[in-house]
């Protein structure tokens, strides 16, 4: 084996501020690049310290000095060249170092990448003589690389990464990669510009020198390069940086950026659940998601220590390597021992922050506590996220040994693990809008092809609707229509966004209210739904204040920073919020729901924070009648004492009444006994299990966006017109546009349930049927027996309103005959008199009638007396 000693003298690892490097000057094509000289003169003593030997000793290190090297560093018995990747780069032999610092005015400073590794120095090994086990460590990939080309192959030590090759490939990727549209080349004539060239253009325009790269794209372009990136991110990413910078400076030669472009790969395919991380992932590129729970304050991390001799004032700088400073013991100028002192304010520091990421609750197996992992964020990634954010992090997994004391002969062989963050992807408000696509992507990963096939198979079953409804809360007996309603709620309508055309966003979520006698397992149903949906929230109206439901502002006692704590409604964004004891809620709390249930946003103006949060949640509420037992003689509004403004925002209002029927009782008893009787195994066969149901719903929710077909639209219009017609004969309005919207949503949900991309007549029929069933239960006027939507929309049935008007007329007549203007009368007296002419007038009806008259300015009511104007 012949080794090529390259780059014996390395350029000093320079700070971003001091160095003046020329990327364009890099002779990158020649295989032997020229070492660049920095414009500031490195002291000879200093550079002589940095011989390759030093690095070698580094790797053969004693316990205590070396960290990640335990995992990443290759065997130390090999001499090799050394590249300092965070400095002006040098690839080549000493002979080629002719030094050509043609300093242009527009040079871009380099900023070291702490996220890639503190020791950004890489060594290249020349493998000219072909495969060698000593060099490769038996790595087959590496051998393949070496054997295929005859020319000199410089490979980064311990890896199979060939710098030139990688650079070339990556440049090619940037220049040519075109995102294939999903239509699959249908628009062949329309030539899209290469995606990442457009991104570079953005860098040019925005002057933000970061280039995010989707690993998925890279993989599609070149799987080998991708594999290398994932396996050796510490080595490959600086190389990618180089390539990107060279490309950038060729395209935009006159542009000076703040610092060099940094490539930020994200979406590495090996997306890990936090629980699946294991020692094999160390030093690899990983992508995990979770929730930020804690952040440290900003930590200035020393990057370069500045020493001054207290005797002769000679100064020197020492780069910090893996958290350690090699403090010079001797002054190089006056040779005084131990005279060098650290000068803090001349040393260089980097911003750093420690973030704790906790596994998201959905990933947690039951009975286990969530795992957390530390993230180290550097530079502008500091404060990029906030506690409570759900983020997807791409970074390098690291392990650092924890040692008791380097001087003792005991070793505590435990490692501290953390992730050096390269990229954050926040599930933020802006992204949530196209969350469907994103979650669809995520689902592809969670669902195997077989599972999807299985679900599709299931959807073709003719009785799928009934099956799913039955699978929903099987322990709750019958109530099929209610279960169907909830099922459709779980699927939800199609999201429609017309904001661009100025018509706003339409609610796609279906809200359902269950009311009825206590003990009709409303709470159980709510609990079930809460457990079924991954983003379900369960609160009780009694215990929850407006604060707990919406969001509140809190002062962090430590930082004095105001933070927004979100409540149940915001937390269940894109999910379902189950509110039990809806009727027990205080008025102020209920007021919040008005906005949530139609606009699906939540406005907060508190402690100087004014914001609107998304709360696109379906609401499933349960309410008990006011008098503890449902009164058949009263309308729903009177029974549950909810404002009609709120009531009309529910798409479906179901009554869960206790049927007094022997047959029913018998079946119910049988059903319940079987719960105590049938063994687990038998139950599986009868019902679809919860996971299948969950997967089915998740799949439909994220993949299917059915649109109305022509006939379906016609049918809906017809249904609406019919509904209006029913009432018009009797002078009452029986349907409002809100009902039409409800019908559309229900029909869409039903289509989703069938895995259909269009809404067809069947869907509309079912939507109509369900809607009618719900209305039959809730909006029937107890006096006339006619379904009257105005009970739900205005709180008063039309017959009741007619009655009030007639009473008002009567009262007016009475008062006009009996009293002159300005006289007072007791309300009780009026009631007595009116009862003579009109039978069965209740005080409440009289009050309502008096209010009508007051509106006419005929009289004024004050307490128990009436004054005629």
């Amino acid at each position: 084996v012949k080794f090529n000693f390259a780059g014996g003298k390395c350029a000093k690892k320079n700070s971003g501020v001091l160095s003046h490097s020329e990327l364009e000057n890099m002779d990158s094509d020649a295989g032997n690049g020229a070492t660049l000289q920095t414009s500031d003169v490195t002291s000879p003593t200093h550079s002589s310290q940095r011989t390759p030997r030093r690095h070698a000793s580094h790797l053969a290190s004693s316990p205590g000095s070396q960290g990640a090297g335990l995992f990443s560093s290759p065997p130390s018995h090999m001499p090799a060249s050394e590249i300092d990747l965070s400095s002006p780069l040098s690839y080549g032999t000493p002979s080629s170092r002719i030094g050509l610092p043609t300093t242009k005015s527009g040079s871009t400073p380099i900023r070291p990448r702490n996220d890639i590794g503190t020791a950004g120095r890489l060594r290249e090994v020349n493998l000219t003589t072909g495969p060698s086990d000593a060099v490769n460590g038996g790595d087959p990939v590496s051998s393949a690389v070496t054997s295929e080309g005859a020319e000199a192959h410089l490979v980064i030590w311990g890896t199979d990464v060939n710098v030139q090759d990688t650079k070339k490939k990556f440049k090619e990727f940037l220049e040519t990669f075109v995102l294939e549209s999903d239509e699959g080349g249908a628009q062949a004539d329309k030539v899209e510009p290469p995606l990442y060239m457009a991104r570079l253009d953005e860098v040019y325009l925005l002057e933000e020198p970061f280039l995010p790269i989707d690993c998925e794209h890279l993989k599609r372009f070149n799987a080998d390069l991708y594999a290398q990136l994932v396996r050796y991110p510490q080595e490959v990413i600086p190389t990618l940086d180089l390539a990107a910078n060279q490309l950038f400076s060729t395209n935009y030669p006159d542009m000076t950026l703040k610092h060099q472009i940094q490539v930020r790969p994200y979406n590495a395919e090996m997306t890990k659940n936090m629980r699946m991380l294991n020692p094999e992932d160390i030093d690899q590129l990983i992508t995990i998601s979770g929730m930020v729970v804690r952040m440290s304050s900003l930590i200035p991390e020393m990057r370069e220590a500045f020493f001054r001799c207290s005797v002769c004032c000679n100064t020197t700088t020492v780069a910090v390597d893996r958290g350690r400073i090699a403090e010079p013991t001797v002054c190089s100028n006056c040779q005084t021992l131990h005279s060098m002192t650290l000068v803090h304010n001349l040393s260089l520091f980097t911003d750093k922050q420690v973030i704790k990421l906790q596994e998201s609750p959905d990933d947690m197996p039951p009975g286990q506590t969530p795992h957390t992992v530390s993230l180290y964020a550097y530079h502008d990634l500091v404060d990029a996220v906030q506690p409570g954010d759900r983020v997807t992090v791409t970074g390098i997994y690291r392990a650092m040994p924890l040692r008791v004391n380097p001087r003792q002969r005991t070793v505590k062989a435990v490692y501290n693990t953390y992730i050096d963050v390269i990229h954050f992807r926040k599930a933020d408000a802006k992204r949530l809008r196209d969350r469907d696509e994103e979650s669809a992507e995520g689902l592809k990963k969670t669902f195997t092809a077989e599972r999807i096939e299985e679900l599709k198979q299931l959807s073709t079953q003719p009785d799928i609707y009934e099956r799913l409804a039955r699978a929903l809360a099987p322990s709750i007996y019958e109530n099929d229509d209610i279960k169907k309603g909830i099922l459709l709620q779980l699927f939800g309508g199609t999201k429609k966004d017309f904001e661009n055309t100025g018509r706003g966003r339409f609610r796609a979520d279906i809200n359902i209210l269950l009311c009825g006698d206590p003990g009709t397992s409303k709470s159980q149903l709510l609990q079930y739904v809460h457990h079924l949906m991954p983003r379900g929230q369960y609160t009780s109206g009694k215990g929850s204040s407006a604060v707990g439901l919406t969001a509140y502002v809190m002062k962090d006692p430590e930082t004095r920073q105001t933070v927004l704590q979100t409540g149940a409604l915001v937390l269940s964004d894109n999910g379902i919020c189950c509110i039990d004891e809806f009727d027990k809620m205080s008025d102020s709390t209920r007021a919040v729901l008005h906005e949530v249930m139609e606009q699906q946003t939540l406005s907060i103006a508190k402690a100087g924070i004014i914001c609107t949060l998304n709360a696109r949640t379906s609401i499933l509420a349960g309410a008990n009648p006011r008098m503890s037992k449902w009164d058949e003689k009263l309308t729903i509004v009177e029974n549950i004492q909810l404002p009609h403004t709120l009531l009309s925002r529910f798409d479906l209002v179901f009554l869960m009444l206790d049927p007094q029927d022997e047959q029913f009782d018998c079946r119910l008893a049988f059903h319940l006994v079987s719960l105590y009787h049938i063994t687990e195994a038998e139950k599986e066969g009868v019902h679809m299990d919860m996971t299948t149901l969950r997967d089915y719903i998740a799949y439909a929710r994220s993949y299917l966006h059915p649109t109305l077909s022509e006939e379906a639209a016609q049918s809906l219009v017809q249904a609406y017109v019919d509904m209006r017609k029913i009432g018009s004969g009797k002078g009452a309005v029986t349907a409002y546009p809100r009902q039409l919207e409800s019908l559309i949503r229900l029909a869409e949900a039903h289509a989703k349930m069938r895995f259909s991309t269009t809404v067809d007549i069947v869907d509309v029929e079912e939507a109509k049927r369900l809607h009618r069933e719900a209305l039959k239960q809730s909006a029937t006027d107890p006096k006339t027996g006619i379904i009257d939507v105005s009970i739900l929309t205005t709180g008063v049935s039309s017959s009741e309103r007619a009655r009030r008007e007639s009473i008002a007329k009567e009262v007016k007549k009475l008062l006009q005959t009996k009293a002159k203007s300005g006289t007072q009368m007791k309300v009780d007296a009026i009631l007595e008199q009116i009862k003579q002419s009109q039978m069965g007038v209740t005080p409440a009806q009289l009050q309502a009638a008096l209010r009508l008259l007051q509106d006419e300015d005929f009289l004024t009511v004050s307490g128990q007396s009436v004054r005629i104007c």
Partner: protein
Amino acid sequence: MSDLIISEPLTVIQGLFEKGGKGDWGVEAFFSSHFATADDIEKVPSLNDRPLHALTDGCLVRYRCMIQDQFEPEYYLNTYQLVNTATGGKVLCCGKYRDVFNYPPNYELNEDPDVTITDERTTLYCVPIPAETEWAKAAFRRDTDGPVVEDERSSRRGTKRGLCDEGDGDDEWMDSDVQSVDGVSKRCKQHDGGHIEGDGGQKSLPGLDEKEISVSCLVKVYGDSIEQFKVASMVEFVGILSVSPSLACFDHNSSDPDQDLLLNPFAAEGAAERKAHSPPPSLVPRLHCILSRTLSHSNPLVTSGSLPLLKDSSAVGVARELALSVLTEVLLGDRLAAEYTLLHMLSSVYGRTEVLALGSFAVNISRCPVPRAQSLSFASSFFSVLQDLVPKCHILPMTLANMNTLRFTPKKDYETNRIQPGTLQFSAGTLLVIDETQLSPGRLNEQGVKNLASLCHLSRWQKIHYDFQYYNTEFNCDMPVMVFSEGRSMIKDNCEVPLDPVAMAPSGDRAIKRLTEHQLHNLREYLGVCREIQYSLPTEFQTIVGDDFVALRKVDPGVTADTLHHLLCLARLVSISYGCAEMSVEQWRHVRELELQRKNRLLRL
């Protein structure tokens, strides 16, 4: 050989390691074959009973505990190599089952990644089973043998009791409104126990409480079996004790803390977390688990040998009658209440369908006599008897102060990255007695409302919310809840039994004192064994139950599905109280009879 395994397990493991082999080099198989029977396991000293100073570092111990928290997995050196600096000779060593390794002076650690193997293990924060009663602890101790140990233990307890008495007195002086809750004789111990479960994690941290030395333990488990260790479950571990003082978290090694802070990246991570995760091993020892066994119950009298009791139906009958008579006496001569209480004591969650916790049976004893000043409340005197019967129970006086100041549910503290225990974090099978008679009118603050809600949630669904600040997570639990109240309890959805007293004065634990040692033993065994019966409902009962239900509904339209659930649950409990695994017609009749009596009493009182 056996002695060597116990005193020098690491040497044995190193021996196995040198022989080679796949996976764990046959360590687990070796140990499980050696400790196959209960007798074998009992030879291993127990960390529960022996003081820490009586055990040596690196010896084999067993530990019976509840998992309170789980830490993140940690990576450690599974295999490492020592190089002799003088001769160059190399030795491979096993790094599993130990925290720290020492090496002889002329050796050096070889960190070559080719020979070092890194593996992961998980740390569990374990505490002795909370709310365990004295007799259960003593029974476990007796199992362990050794008069020497007993002596040591009792002398230690003696001093502890003294300390504790003082502390208790102080407490009563200091905060008289957080009432002391226990029977006079039991007060001291129980109070102490309250400390453990109240905030065991924090208390055992340095400088906070020196009383409960060696109570908690950090158990390190290996392999992929982590999923089986659930929070709040009871486990018995056999493993290697590790108390090397170097495990404690030192603040800084460096003389210059400033520089250290700048250079040591881990100084940035809260010192609080490091402190919480690596307390001094003299207070919280480490245990490297080799064998583990999840316990379904913690009754020392329920063993494979107690099955004959069930076969002898007359013995069961006698025990049942005895239990009823004791409970009747405690409950002021009310036999119906005693019957319901007995059923309650036997109840456990035996299955969950979707959200329902089948088998959970919460009881509310209403119309309790109001305690006169200075005297013990009725619930407390009942509790003092309960303590002598069941292995685990806890009383919660629902005073305004307790409601407003205690935190019932566990909460994640992100500062220390630990789950702080809540008052209600108990293992399965702990009887919870809630004394609502202590509640006085007043204002509940936010914490109070939350606490009340979690009590209701627990009673209804047998689930506890763990507060993770940004969201709540539900954990299933199994803690039968019994509420003593003057009127109808605030905690709804339970079975209300109004007390109909015959005698007036609470009898205290006289009923227990009268029993012979043998009778008491039988009683405890009966309660323990019956709880574990696997019950099934015979098919022919489906129609009987169904018909009865229809008939019931005809009479009373207020009968709902919940009523039927309740009846079926009662039926199961009555059956197992007779030691039967299947329901019989008489037992169903008995259930109906009980319910009828209760209904009538509800109407009457």
